[in-house]
């Protein structure tokens, strides 16, 4: 049977969670912002190797600036986490360390990808300064708009999850 893995996508509102998933699943993008409330769930089958495919169940959660308030039920049975922030809005990464700590407490022992999104909006040098100043380490810098590194992100996570089980 096809292995299926649940991935939750978390972060403050407006950082591009929905856009990243949409880029990954349907390879489209919209500049319009439609706020997600509750949770939207989509599925995408990913090829790991010639012989192996897994199905990713992507949970696109409502954005919140208080990670603590995320309902436990949403996180039940999670295999992987993507935490997204918006590199153009400091409020979404100001408390990144404590946010990530809360995430790893709520979902312990689960692979986690930290993603800075919207790279198309700043130049690389400025971005590096912002990251250094805030002592932020990311796994991926992405742009849902251009598609930059979006596939890489989910493929890497999928590979990791395929190995885990």
């Amino acid at each position, binding site marked *: 049977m096809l292995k299926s893995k*649940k991935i939750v996508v978390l972060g403050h*509102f407006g950082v591009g969670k929905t856009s990243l998933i949409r880029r990954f699943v349907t390879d489209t993008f919209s500049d319009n912002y439609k706020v997600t*409330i*509750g949770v939207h769930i989509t599925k995408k089958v990913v090829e790991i190797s010639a012989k192996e495919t897994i199905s990713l169940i992507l949970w696109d959660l*409502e954005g919140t600036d208080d990670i603590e308030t995320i309902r436990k039920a*949403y996180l*039940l049975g999670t295999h992987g986490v993507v935490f997204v922030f918006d590199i153009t809005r400091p409020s979404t990464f100001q408390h990144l360390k404590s946010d990530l700590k809360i995430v790893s407490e709520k979902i312990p022992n689960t692979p986690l990808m930290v993603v800075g999104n919207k790279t198309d909006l700043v130049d690389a040098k400025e971005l590096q300064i912002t990251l250094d100043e805030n002592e932020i380490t990311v796994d991926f810098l992405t742009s849902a708009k251009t598609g930059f590194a979006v596939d890489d992100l989910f493929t890497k996570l999928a590979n990791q999850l395929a190995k885990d089980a």
Partner: protein
Amino acid sequence: MLDHYRREFTNKNIQFIFVDQKGVVQESDDEVFSVQTGSSIFELHPFFESLEGIFESPENEVDFYCVHLPLKENVFTVDLKIAKKEGGLLLIIYDLTKHYNTYQSVTQVRNESVIKTELTVIKNQELEERERFKNRFIQNFSHELRNPLTSIMAITNILEETKLDTEQSQMLQFLKASNANLKQLLEDILSISMIDTGKLDLVQKMFDLKQFFDLLEFTYKAKAKEKGLNFNADWDEKLPKFVEGDRLRIFQVVTNLLDNAIKYTETGTITFSLKLNQKRANRVSLRFQIKDSGIGIANENLEVIFESFNQLGAIGNTSSGSGLGLAIASGLLNLMESEIKVNSTVGQGSEFYFDLHLKFQLLTSPDAKKSSPKSHKKQELKKTEGPKSKLLLVEDDLQVQTTLFKILLGTGRFHIDVVYDGALVLQEVVSSNYDIIVMDVNLPNLSGDQITKLIREFPFNNVKTIPIIGITADGYQENIDKCRKAGMNKVLIKPFEKEDFLNSIYKILRNSKR
């Protein structure tokens, strides 16, 4: 079996489904959407794949909120209760699509305005930083230039004392004129940059207005005469002799305008008039007006002439001066809470005017203060009251709205804004700094306690801590508790006395250190 569970619920928008341990649908009442008995629930929507996790979890019951289920034609937004039962799982599905659609609209407005505010703040910070840098640069630069210029001027003066032939004397006069221009230019640039950086503070003092006027008349009559122009000075006899203001800066504004008038006029008359608009209590409104019969300003130039540097060479081609005069004048007037207005016709002339609101002294009756106890008392009262508070009234019932508005307005202590819609409240609170909100609990679409909750969840401290007073006709403890729990500071039960209403507001305002 399902009937047994259903008896507890009466709502039609609830569906019961029972699936076995493999996720095969055993029974469904299809109240919300239809599911085939015998089919796999996992196939229905990827959400249901998470049910496997529930079999493994220690909990016996799990609640999910606001899950979107796009099924065939319809998208349902549902809450689900999933309970482990013998032989499988019971799924209770509440269709709350309508409710969540409303919630979505409100959250949409909130998130958008929060993000917009955040990005505006960032953008302004960047602009300010750039502006600060520019001004720092200009200020340093001007100071650096002053020293060599002072040397040049000193040496020019010494040179003038030496023996020079006619040609050399002539050249020296040009040199002196250029020095003077350069000096004025530096001073103007410095003034502009001081105004822009807010480093220029006004010094308010009583001064002799008549003397001020006479000095200007004397100076500019001479200057006009030099150029072969007539000069009229018009003093209004109703004007007070002494006023309180920054004499030096007012002088700077008027001289800038008069210099311009002379500069751009070749024949005819310059008129300077000072008139009284009105006197009230101890305040006067003055109208300064400078009129010329010069070259005039084309309509398309009227807006740019007040901008720094933009007008360099834009009007006429007189070479003297920095061309910053109008920018300085308008910047200074801005500090004095006034603004320059201009009427102009190309070829006929221009008229610049502005109004100043100044305090004045009633020198004619030295006992003025004693003889008008009324105004004195009023002032006292105001002092103890402090500045007005900004109050947002949220009420959809027009009658109640009017009554409350009248009560609040009657105190003279509030700036009041009124809205009647929940989504508008959220927009209002981020765009204006309110000291307090008075809100009906029973609003359409989104109730007062829900709005309160959203406000309390705002990421901005100045918004989330705004004191909120709820008004309700429902005096049941349950309702009051709900409002307090949502974050209201006080709940008033209708009907209430005017005094109680106002006192509650005053008390909360006193206690909140906003």
